[in-house]
């Protein structure tokens, strides 16, 4: 990509006696100052990350006892407690979000890459996908409130799943498209050549080949869903207790962090840190796995 300076200096056309062109001192100094500035920028950008991870470990780790995973959230002024229901709720809402967005996203990607590659509609779909990924998460929450909560008359995990699905779909579509595009055309020709119908070619040959990409997209989408708070405030709301149906208000880790972070009680604040450590830990592990699995840039 980039041409390093030394390769230019070491080209075959060296003038004897003047091996390298040196700019004037002021220009050289200017370059050094600018280099210093961008290194400073990089340090400044990584400082908050370091601070966040450090404080999460320090504040969250002390409360990360087994009780945290097995007990229910404590009322104010009561010590101890945990957030087992919120862990279950987070996994539940994220799973429901994936259940809606993954089939939708993969089938959409199949249309834009296999049936309508490069046509007007595919371009329109790409445009809509990008615009949708820029829609604020709070809007997705209000949308799900309007189309699920108001109609069913109750806050629920399903409503949370619908809100999350809106946010997950663009990520799934994008990664699935990349995966499908990376499959060489010979594979398609071979499949069609031995007499496969389009459906057979896609379901038996093309999709399995693109599976690693799709799996990456799903994990990235799940990582996003696990951390989302705003959409869940208006849909899954919160629940002090365990849920036994998807049509009830449901506790989630992210909403628990929000509720307990702004609470005046020390014990609840500590639990917020522990929950944040669990959430960020989950997200980082998933992101790193996804990254290592494909070694491609997806965002």
């Amino acid at each position, binding site marked *: 990509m980039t041409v390093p300076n030394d390769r230019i200096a070491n080209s075959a056309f060296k003038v004897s006696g003047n091996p390298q062109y040196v700019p004037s001192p002021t220009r050289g100094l200017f370059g050094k100052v600018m280099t210093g500035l961008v290194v400073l920028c990089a340090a400044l950008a990584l400082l908050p990350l370091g601070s966040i991870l450090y404080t999460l470990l320090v504040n969250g780790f002390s409360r990360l006892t087994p009780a945290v995973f097995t007990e229910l959230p404590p009322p104010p002024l009561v010590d101890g407690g945990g957030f087992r229901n919120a862990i279950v709720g987070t996994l539940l809402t994220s799973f429901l979000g994936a259940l809606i967005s993954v089939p939708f996203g993969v089938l959409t990607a199949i249309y834009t890459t296999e049936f309508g590659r490069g046509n007007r509609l595919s371009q329109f779909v790409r445009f809509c996908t990008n615009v949708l990924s820029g829609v604020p998460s709070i809007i997705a929450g209000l949308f799900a409130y309007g189309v699920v909560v108001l109609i069913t008359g109750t806050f629920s995990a399903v409503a949370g799943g619908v809100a999350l699905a809106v946010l997950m779909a663009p990520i799934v579509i994008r990664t699935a498209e*990349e995966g499908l595009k990376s499959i*060489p055309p010979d594979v398609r020709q071979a499949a069609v050549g031995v007499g496969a119908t389009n459906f057979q070619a896609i379901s038996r040959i093309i999709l399995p080949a693109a599976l690693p990409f799709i799996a990456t997209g799903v994990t990235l989408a799940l990582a996003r869903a696990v951390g989302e708070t705003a959409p869940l405030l208006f849909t899954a709301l919160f629940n002090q207790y365990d849920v036994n149906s998807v049509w009830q208000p449901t506790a989630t880790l992210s909403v628990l962090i929000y509720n307990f972070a702004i609470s005046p009680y020390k014990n609840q604040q500590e639990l917020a840190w522990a929950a944040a450590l669990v*959430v960020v830990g989950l997200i*980082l592990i998933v992101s790193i796995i996804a990254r290592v699995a494909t070694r491609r840039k997806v965002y």
Partner: protein
Amino acid sequence: MTPQSAAPEESLIQASSKFHPTRLIDRVFYWLTLILAIGIGAVLVWITFSLLNIALPSIREFGLGFLTQSVWNPVTDSFGAFPQVYGTIVSAILALLFAVPIGVGVAVFLSEDFLPRKILTPIAFLVELLAAIPSVVYGLWGIFVLIPAILPLLRWIHSVFGWIPFFSTPPSTRQMFVTALVLSIMILPTIIAISRDTLVSLPPQLRQGAYGLGATRWETILKVLLPAALSGIIGSVMLALGRALGETMAAAMLIGNANRVNISFFAPASTIAALIANQFGEASGLQRSSLFFAALVLMLLTLAVNMLAEYIISRFQEVER
């Protein structure tokens, strides 16, 4: 977004010389994918429509005056979101002021060869992790770590530069300035990732030509590469602006939810998203309708910003090909 996806353009349709979805299952499958693809556009329309539907009573009641009035009184049922609109836009612009110079700087740092690839790749990954941290965790960190740490510095700024209207109030614990600072951290990854992509995908002849004319590395960056990548960088900034406008949890936790406009950045303020997050629980009737009206305004604002960004970035990619 990766420009070097050099897969040959051949889809299934071209592989089977003529596409006759003769079999029922093929035909059903084709239409299923087609309908879902159209569904993406439909979802966007549906979202807007569902917000509009609930916002309607408030729109009828207040009309465009909603955007210029500064009352928010559930008791008398009179609502106006001017302070929130102001706070949303000002906090986002402040966040851009912090984030753009640093973001472009980091993008240059990561796209040049100041350090070997082996070191730059992990740094780039770490920057992307900033995007993976949830908004609510930024809020938590802001409340318990950033605000206590930065307040002394803000007090000093207030004591020395208090004569500037923007710093005229003593810094409170929940305020616009710190919120904008946290927003700027949250939008950095967007600016860095897209700007870096653009810089990396510039034709190498540009750099070679500039070096050949005797420019130093930094003269090349500032006078050749950055101008050439300008549209991509502007696109990334627009996308980041869209993110900052719609950011909810961090703003709701840090901005202080004041219902009036204060010119000072050290005073509590509010944003549309923070207003909705804080009031939704106990809202009903006209108040809920007004919250949806505010959400509709936010939606249209971010849609406009994002569509413009998309257009700018896609134009750049066409130029490249």
